[in-house]
């Protein structure tokens, strides 16, 4: 009977979703700027209302609960969730997912968005299940955590999907207005494979007993607990009934304008290493200091396509919208209508000051992005080491995290974007084992390498001070490549085993000796733009004059794309950009003479102007004199 009821409710919800997708119909709307008070009945994954007083009450389903009024499937096509969707536009390259494995020396950039330099998870043999397990800690749900039902059914881990359920979009990850929702707790539930239970537990509505990862493949989450087989118990919820009103409704404290702190769970970037200034002195984005939040600029509509803030000219698809152009650096600070600057009189969305840029030749705006001068730390001769939430698991409490943990993410790197403009970027050098077949390279997952290489791979061991294991030596690389080659030869797999690290591609030659190639495309570093922290005008490149950049040894040109100049593969910024080094030197030398030229130029122009004025005055006086003389005569 319960099943039938659930089916009826589900059909009703499906119908309402279809209607909700059509603008202006079927969607419960207040059309007020006052946030709607979400005092809600919770619904389980079958669409049945949850009674928290019942034993074995199921977890709530965001799809069924939030989706009752909001078009879940449409939202699931938004930026944070649409990565695996074929046809979803990838836009400007962003931070990739990084598959890290210290023991095998693996730092593999992954993305389903087709960004050059990344690998789609499925191409390296990483299933949706594996992706969700490894990286779901910072996945807001949906996407790889919630593949279509048919896909889950035929997946190699179909049984585990049945046990754990889908990792649905947890709306509260972003929209919780209070810290009651705990994304770190959610990450722990993902690790325990408690996908279905994660939103409920993270919201603090219940505590969970048990882990789905310990439940057998044939465990049925809908079946009542088997008292005779306690070992077969899966997760069970104990609801906090104080969170429910007498009608079993819960007050969700939600906001349409998520606080910055919610974004930080996935988007924190911290400086690490010896150059780090520490939290007390850490740079803070000038916009946040002025009272803005992330979502004041990175807005979205109901479709949840987040404005990424790089302007209309850079992105096709939705980002051509005028709203997107307006929510960029230029849009706020210059004011735009359809990408055309309006000028100082009407600029200044959010009170953004109109930039003066006095004495800065306009060519700089053609050749550089705003962020080149305004974002990230003030550049030094060497880049700095950073840790990111996605790459280093920031946001999860740990005593093990060290500044030197892989991957090595460095910034600022002054590279060129797709439009050829110089912009600050973050950089990571990929490291992975792979099979190279002609131009085609197929990375191997760390577990595959461990299995195939066997004893050739050194045992993973952390040093006493918690530092990650040292990088593999040439001898170790050669041994593993040899082992991979032997296994591969026996299996008849195509391609030569190779290892990529520090911008080099290692392989064994015909004699079995280790050789390495530089500049192989597969070994190229991956860059993504650095948009924050934005520095105010008074702390921007150029505030010290042209010599901030146009001087011998200026970081913009001569800085190293590494934390130390002597680091392996350390290249200088002009080399990374492919600039002509003679031209760079010539520019720097020319600007050394600029003050002298200015003085000389002003002197010459001044002398000639005086001569011109003097002659004009003389001519004028002569004319007057002649007129006076004519008058007298």
């Amino acid at each position, binding site marked *: 009977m319960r099943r039938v009821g659930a089916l009826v409710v589900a059909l009703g919800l499906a119908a309402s979703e279809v209607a909700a997708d059509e603008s202006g119909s079927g969607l419960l709307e207040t059309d007020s700027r006052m946030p709607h008070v979400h005092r809600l009945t919770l619904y389980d994954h079958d669409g049945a209302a949850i009674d928290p007083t019942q034993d074995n009450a199921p977890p709530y389903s965001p799809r069924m609960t939030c989706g009752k009024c909001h078009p879940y499937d449409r939202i699931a096509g938004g930026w944070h969730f649409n990565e695996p969707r074929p046809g979803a536009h990838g836009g400007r390259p962003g931070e990739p997912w990084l598959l890290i494995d210290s023991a095998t020396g693996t730092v593999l950039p992954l993305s389903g968005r087709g960004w050059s330099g990344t690998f789609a998870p499925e191409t390296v043999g990483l299933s949706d299940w594996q992706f969700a397990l490894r990286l779901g800690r910072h996945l807001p749900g949906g996407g790889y955590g919630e593949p279509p039902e048919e896909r889950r059914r035929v997946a190699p881990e179909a049984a585990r999907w049945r046990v754990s359920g889908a990792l649905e979009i947890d709306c509260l990850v972003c929209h919780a207005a209070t810290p009651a929702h705990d994304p770190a707790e959610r990450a722990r539930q993902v690790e325990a494979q408690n996908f279905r239970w994660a939103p409920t537990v993270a919201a603090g509505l219940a505590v969970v007993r048990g882990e789905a990862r310990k439940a057998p493949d044939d465990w049925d989450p809908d079946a009542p607990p088997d008292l005779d087989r306690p070992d077969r118990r899966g997760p069970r919820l104990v609801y906090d009934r104080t969170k429910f009103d007498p009608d079993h409704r819960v007050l969700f404290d939600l906001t349409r304008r998520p606080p910055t702190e919610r974004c930080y769970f996935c988007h924190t970037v911290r400086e690490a290493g010896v150059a780090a200034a520490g939290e007390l002195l850490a740079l803070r984005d000038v916009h946040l200091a002025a009272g803005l939040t992330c979502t004041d600029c990175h807005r979205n509509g109901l479709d949840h396509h987040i404005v990424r803030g790089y302007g209309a000219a850079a992105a096709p698809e939705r980002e051509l919208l005028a709203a997107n152009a307006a929510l960029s650096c230029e849009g706020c600070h210059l004011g735009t209508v359809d990408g055309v600057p309006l000028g100082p009189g009407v600029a200044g969305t959010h009170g953004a000051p109109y930039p003066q840029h*006095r004495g800065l030749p306009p060519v700089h705006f053609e050749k550089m992005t705003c962020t080149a001068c305004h974002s990230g730390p003030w550049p030094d001769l060497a880049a700095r080491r950073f840790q990111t939430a996605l790459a280093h698991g920031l946001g999860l409490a740990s005593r093990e995290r060290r500044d030197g943990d892989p991957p090595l993410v460095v910034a600022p790197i002054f590279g060129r974007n797709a439009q050829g403009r110089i912009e600050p970027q973050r950089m990571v050098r990929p490291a992975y084992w792979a099979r190279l077949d002609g131009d085609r390279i197929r990375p191997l997952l760390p577990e595959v390498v461990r299995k195939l290489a066997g004893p050739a791979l050194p045992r993973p061991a952390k040093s006493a001070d918690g530092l990650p294991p040292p990088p593999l030596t040439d001898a170790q690389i050669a041994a593993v490549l040899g082992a991979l080659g032997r296994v591969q030869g026996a299996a008849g797999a195509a391609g030569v085993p190779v290892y990529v690290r520090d911008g080099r591609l290692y392989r064994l030659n015909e004699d079995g000796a280790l050789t390495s190639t530089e500049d192989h495309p597969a070994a190229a570093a991956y860059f993504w733009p650095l948009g924050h922290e934005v520095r105010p005008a008074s702390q921007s490149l150029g505030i010290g004059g042209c010599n901030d950049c146009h001087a011998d040894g200026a970081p913009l040109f001569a800085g190293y794309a590494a934390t130390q100049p002597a680091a392996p593969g350390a290249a200088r910024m002009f080399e990374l950009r492919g600039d002509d080094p003679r031209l760079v030197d010539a520019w720097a030398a020319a600007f050394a003479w600029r003050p002298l030229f200015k003085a000389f130029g002003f002197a010459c122009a001044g002398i000639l102007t005086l001569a*011109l004025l003097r002659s004009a005055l003389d001519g004028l006086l002569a004319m007057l004199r002649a007129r006076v003389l004519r008058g007298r005569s």
Partner: protein
Amino acid sequence: MSDAPLSAPSPPPSRPDASEPGPPGPPVHRGLSAVEHVVHAVAIVGVAIQSVTGFGPELGLGALEGWRLLLHLCGAGLFVAGFTATMLLWLPRARGTAPGMGSVRRTLYWLIMAAGLAVMWPMLLAMLPLAGPDTLAVLAEWHRAAALTLVFLMVPHTVVSLAARRS
């Protein structure tokens, strides 16, 4: 800026009467000294470099950037030095305090000086932290328009100078 015969021997210049600074008689040509030759050469090279690099896009030489822009900046030194020196060299004659310049050439001289100054000042001002990008763009347009005017003025100036040389 070459405003006089560069190689042909000339009759000795007539000495103007110091008490009559007014318009001198018919133009009198004289040869240029080695220093004057150098000054003219520097000015000509400066104008040539600036014209070719500055109007590169119109001449099909590509945008003003990279090496071309650097050459333009370096050529600016030559242009400023050569132009100023040449103008000062001919200033007495243009002012009528020395013979050797007819009214047409004198008119062209002052127009060329005005155009040259209109070329120089916008870019000199642009090097100061005074104007924003919009104003800088306007200054660059002025610089460009003045440069074009200067180049066009050079044509009648050359014709008149050559004609004066033949006479």
